[in-house]
């Protein structure tokens, strides 16, 4: 698989349920970021977790990072219809490289 692969590719849940998305990557990273993209719109930065952090919270978002497994998860608790969007993980490679490397994304649908 390529750097920044999310699974599942698509997830459909009922409003109020929790949604979990996973991301795997291959190279050493400086940090890992999660972004949301509403259909046809721009990317919105959600949360950043550093390589020396294991867990981070922001409102209803919880991100974990396991550098030994090169994986991360994004949990959205108490989902709302407005959370319907695509979610991407993006890794900032170690060593000062400039670019973010994005995954394919998870398409999340929250059913009312």
């Amino acid at each position: 698989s390529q750097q920044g692969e999310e699974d599942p590719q698509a997830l459909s849940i009922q409003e109020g349920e929790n949604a979990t998305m996973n991301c795997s990557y291959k190279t050493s990273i400086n940090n890992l970021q999660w972004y949301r993209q509403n259909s046809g719109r721009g990317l919105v930065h959600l949360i950043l977790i550093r390589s020396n952090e294991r867990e981070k919270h922001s409102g209803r978002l919880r991100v974990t990072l396991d550098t030994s497994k090169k994986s991360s998860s994004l949990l959205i608790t108490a989902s709302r219809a407005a959370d319907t969007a695509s979610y991407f993980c993006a890794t900032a490679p170690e060593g000062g490289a400039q670019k973010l490397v994005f995954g394919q994304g998870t398409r999340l649908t929250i059913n009312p």
Partner: protein
Amino acid sequence: EPEVTQTPSHQVTQMGQEVILRCVPISNHLYFYWYRQILGQKVEFLVSFYNNEISEKSEIFDDQFSVERPDGSNFTLKIRSTKLEDSAMYFCASTFLQGSNYGYTFGSGTRLTVV
């Protein structure tokens, strides 16, 4: 909250024509980027720009592409002799400090359609 502004939001151009996509990054940010997203595919890095010069570019960013910061606020991507496969959403992004654990701020994108 500060925003990255991109214009136009949509651009339709004939194959072979030149297009200029414009971006106004956040004023105190120092690093600027262009990414693109072909419909249904990953967001791909094109180029990064710092201190008035390209700091890194991808294989996609060949001689057909160029970037410029003509003044203190605008950051442009020029695509010469557009091809059908250049049709994509182009995103500008900026960040305050590279590798500093700041997230990037992305613009809303320019949807480029080459016909």
